[in-house]
């Protein structure tokens, strides 16, 4: 096959890869520009295990009663509020990276989740939601007679 020789293409691709994937601290910017003021985007993780899915969300300083979990039409929504308690007493901020305000994260549950038995635990600033798989989808071996 003949292709047009474009020596700059490879270089450009490398630049893109390098500056985009390798160098830029993407996580630093993530959620910074795409969340409105007064909102933040807590980091979320979903791990599939043999019999369940485990969802973990980093929610430092969020009170248990300020977290809301909802399952509606296969969509799980974790929302809440991180309150800024220092606001009234502070004499001055030298430096501020931490974000406060409301947050909402939604994701679609895999179809075969036993949504009646979803449980959640909050500890050390991390919310862990356990979603057991529905019995039918765990897979079973069928004997051939």
């Amino acid at each position: 096959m003949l292709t047009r020789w474009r020596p700059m293409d490879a270089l450009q691709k490398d630049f893109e890869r390098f500056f985009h994937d390798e160098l830029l601290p993407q996580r630093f910017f993530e959620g910074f520009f795409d969340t409105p003021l007064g909102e933040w985007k807590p980091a979320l993780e979903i791990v599939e295990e043999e019999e369940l899915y485990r969802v973990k969300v980093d929610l430092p300083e969020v009170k248990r009663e300020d977290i809301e979990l909802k399952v509606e039409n296969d969509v799980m929504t974790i929302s809440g509020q991180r309150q800024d308690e220092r606001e009234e007493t502070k004499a001055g901020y030298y430096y501020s990276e931490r974000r406060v305000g409301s947050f909402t994260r939604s994701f679609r549950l895999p179809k075969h989740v036993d949504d009646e038995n979803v449980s959640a635990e909050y500890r050390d600033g991390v919310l862990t939601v356990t979603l057991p798989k529905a019995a039918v989808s765990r897979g079973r071996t069928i004997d051939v007679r």
Partner: protein
Amino acid sequence: MLRHWDPFHQVRRDLYRDALAQKGQRPESWQPLVDIVEEESHYQVVLDVPGLRREDLAIRLEQSVLTVEGERKRVEVENGKPLHHERRFGTFRRVFTLSRDVDGEAIEANLELGVLTITLPKRPEKQPKRISIN
């Protein structure tokens, strides 16, 4: 062997060889987000460290340099398949140079709900005096 002639190969290799080498050698790391607040009687350094326990953290004061180090350990589950991950793990170190009016002897730290709060009291003589009017 015939190889595709890449006139920029050398340039590219030199350009990011060092950076990539460094990256490969660095262990996984993350940085907790920090606030530094000044109050009338003290300063506060506040770090978001969700999931960390007391034993995962070390706070050190040397001269006027405060170092907070720690490790956020990834809990690997056997046969666990990550479907989505934004949470970061690994070791971190954040270093702060303290103001001269901090009383190093009286620094206190508290860990609650995944937030580490370090309180650095100002020396009494540096605090504003209130003079009452008789």
